[in-house]
């Protein structure tokens, strides 16, 4: 048994290819034609960034793919990555009215990918920053989805945005963390370039709090957006954890995303500890890179797992095995002899449903690689030291107003995983946009002009700029018109 690269380049690329192939033009048109072009569409409302989904799908059907991409990117600058990584089953596609007609919902994600791919292939400039600048400057800490979205929105509103990113490449987990078969790093990096094309400066390899102190940032800018995401994976806290062959899920995924796939080492029998989406991603990718067996070890049962149902299904299809109600208590092996396996115990839920180890149930299973996927640590206390004046909630996330992102410190805003405790890319994008809108309002006293297609249920939370010139419904105008009508006789 050994940890080493297992597959040829071709085999690895094939295994790790995007789960669903890109639509060909005719397929896209046929799918787009199925969309009913609903008014007050529930899919729009279920998208955190409020993309005018029927609008862009209708444009694909009408062979206006450029326009479709424009509609998407104006509402969500990371439309290309969201098209690939969004859990659409529980977002837009889960809300599609066709489900109520017992039909397959419109493949909104794939259509969005089709339109945004076209935008990147044609390289048409679809987003613009105004030539006239406001003179306001915003520092954005963290170049992940939240930071990029905030920066792009600010740039389009005429403000200057500078991103500080401690990694060598921007994009955050889109670049380093997303499962390869969902999105290749190149897509994330192309999006970074789109944001740069709006005039956003990105200072990579620069860690705020280490390379640049917080007070210097506060002195130089009119506002700050904290988008630092989450930290490293929690440790297991068991003996043997530092043995070679024990790796962090995020480090494993980063390695496979940053290196040629045929150079990525995996074990023959891999244990993945934890059962969130990250654990599933690590397990499926280890399997797809040639591990003989991959076993997910989880101290609760399948009904409790935090991973999405379809992620669980994918792992099972890939042949990942599951050890439920099981807790590792020791990593077996030695520095010299290497990793030998895991000593584990059975667990049982106590009266409160919390898993408790069952005494005397120890058993050993040989593994040659252990991937830790226990969830990421919160960075709240770290950042609060760098930026005194912000507050941290009891879960360790930065406290902020949900609608505006503003923290207790009046000129510092926060969003993304660092504030919401860890969610999806699309939430980070939406939060970045909302914070940008709030900053714009504080700079100019006006709400951003980019309006959204309002729906019967109101405006989707914080959505801006669904791509239409004017909102379709202007309730006040309707009322004014009726009043005018009455007074004119």
């Amino acid at each position, binding site marked *: 048994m050994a940890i080493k690269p297992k597959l040829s380049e071709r085999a690895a690329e094939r295994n790790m290819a995007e789960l669903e192939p890109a639509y060909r*033009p*005719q397929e896209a048109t046929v799918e787009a*034609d*199925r969309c009913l*072009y609903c*008014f007050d569409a529930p899919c729009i409302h279920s998208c955190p960034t409020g993309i005018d989904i029927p*609008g862009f799908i*209708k*444009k694909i059907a*009408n*062979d*206006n793919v*450029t*326009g479709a991409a*424009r509609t998407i990117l104006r509402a969500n600058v990371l439309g290309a990555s969201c098209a690939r990584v969004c859990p659409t089953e529980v977002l837009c596609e889960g809300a599609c009215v066709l489900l109520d007609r017992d039909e397959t919902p419109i493949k909104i994600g794939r259509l969005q990918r089709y339109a945004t791919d076209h935008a990147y292939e044609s390289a048409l400039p679809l987003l613009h920053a105004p030539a006239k600048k406001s003179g306001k400057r915003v520092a954005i800490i963290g170049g992940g989805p939240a930071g990029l979205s905030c920066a792009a929105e600010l740039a389009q509103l005429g403000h200057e945005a500078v991103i500080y990113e401690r990694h060598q490449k921007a994009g955050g987990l889109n670049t380093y963390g997303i499962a390869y078969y969902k999105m290749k790093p190149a897509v994330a990096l192309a999006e970074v370039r789109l944001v740069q094309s709006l005039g956003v400066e990105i200072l990579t390899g620069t860690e705020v709090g280490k390379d640049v102190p917080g007070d210097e940032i506060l002195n130089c800018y009119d506002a700050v957006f904290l988008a630092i995401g989450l930290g490293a994976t929690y440790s297991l806290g068991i003996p043997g954890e530092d043995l070679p062959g024990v790796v962090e899920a995020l480090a494993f995924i980063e390695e496979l995303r940053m290196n040629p796939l045929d150079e990525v080492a995996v074990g023959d029998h891999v244990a993945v500890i934890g059962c969130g989406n990250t654990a599933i991603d690590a397990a499926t990718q280890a399997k797809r890179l040639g591990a003989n067996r991959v076993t997910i070890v989880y101290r609760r049962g399948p009904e409790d797992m935090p991973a999405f149902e379809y992620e669980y299904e994918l792992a099972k299809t890939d042949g990942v095995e599951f050890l439920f109600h099981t807790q590792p208590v020791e990593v077996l092996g030695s520095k010299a002899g290497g990793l030998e396996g895991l000593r584990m115990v059975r667990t049982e839920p106590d009266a409160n449903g919390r898993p408790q180890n069952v005494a005397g149930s120890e058993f050993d299973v040989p593994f040659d690689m252990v991937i830790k996927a226990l969830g990421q640590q919160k960075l709240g206390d770290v950042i609060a030291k760098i930026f005194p004046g912000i507050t941290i909630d009891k879960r360790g996330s930065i406290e902020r107003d949900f609608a505006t992102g503003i923290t207790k410190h009046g000129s510092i805003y926060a969003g993304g995983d660092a504030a919401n405790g860890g969610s999806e890319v699309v939430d980070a994008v939406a939060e970045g946009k909302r914070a940008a809108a709030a900053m714009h309002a504080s700079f100019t006293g006006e709400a951003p002009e980019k309006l959204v*297609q309002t729906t019967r249920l109101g405006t989707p939370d914080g959505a801006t700029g669904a*791509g*239409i*010139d*004017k*909102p*379709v419904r*202007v309730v006040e*105008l*309707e009322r004014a*018109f*009726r009043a*005018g*009508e009455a007074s*004119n*006789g």
Partner: protein
Amino acid sequence: MADLSINFAGIRSPNPFWVASGPPANTGYQANRAFEAGWGGVVWKTIGEPIVNTASRYSAMHLGNTRIAGFNNIELISDRAPETNFDEIAEVKRRWPDRVVVASLMTDTRENWHDYMKRSTDCGSDAVELNFGCPHGMCERGMGSAVGQNPEVIETIVGWVMEVAEIPVIVKLTPNITSVKHAARAAKNAGADAISLINTINSITQVNLETFAPEPLVDGRSTHGGYCGPAVKPIALNMLHECAADPGFDLPISGIGGIGNWRDAAEFLALGSTSLQVCTAIMHYGFRIVEDMKEGLSDYLDAQGFSSVNDMIGRAVPNVGDWQNLNLNYKRVARIDYNKCIGCNLCYVACEDGAHQCIDLIDPAGYGLGPGRVPEKFIPQVREVDCVGCNLCSLVCPVDNCIDMVELKSEKQPMSWKEYQQRVADGDMDPIPAHP
């Protein structure tokens, strides 16, 4: 960004997209919503002596999964009082001075036409459109298509209108006529400033086979309704071209009939429309469709290198003409791309039973078959020497660009039927032998 603004018979509009006279243009409230959504103009629902409508009023032709491939209505003109309509036009114009509002009119006597013309002008309409097209109900009362089908009557009524006209007069023509050219010429002779076409086409969309009465059903009976929507676009384009290509006919044309997206719009522009009107597509999806129309058209113009929409108006007109001038020596044959072919054999059966028996089913060995094809299943192959280039197989093929119609370079000089007749008469060539 290409300039979308137009000047239609002196009327300036920020874009060519106008709401056609019909239910979406019934009230000031709707006009307001239309302008909010970005429409350049509204042609008001036809104003006249208020009428009484029936329930029901509309029916449609659904085609497979496509709802409303064609639409039919038996509705009459506005059922609101003329003064209500004129007051609301005034209010809309006050709110939207840069947009176009056209009063559509239909009445009978010379005095009444004069009266409506004056009121239209007084309320601030940018123009009037004379509805000579409504093919149901109103024609039974001597108006609408009863006027539009008779060039002499058109000339008389337009003449009355022009006696008092201070704003541009657009004459809206009916397609329920053998040649629309004569109606268009009559409008021009009487001094009209522009024409618009088409109004709706006489139709019955379906018969209920239990009650034996068509829809739209009115207490057990129905009537011939006006047909519109996507299905009528080819008819509208044809009539548009007839007028646009008529030598000596130089009035601007507002194109109507089946426009639903930017591409339809661009086709109407290419065949000579200056402004465009839309009814059914709005009835189906609402005013919001104009966003795609404006954006799609603008992107198209940019891609083509046109700086203004005016640069493309009428560009396709000269490329359509009489059959007798088409080149008989032009050769085009069907060619199948086996990387795309899915093996449905629809092309084969269409050519075999419906065309010229030029496709064979052959052994697939040696042809790079596309993915998923059943091995050894015979594949269609066009016998190019026999293919007459009719297009049928490429039209039935369900895969885009799988059957290409490719041009075969001919060593023969181009020869039209007219020239052919001449050459045979002059003894320069033998008649072409009949097809076997």
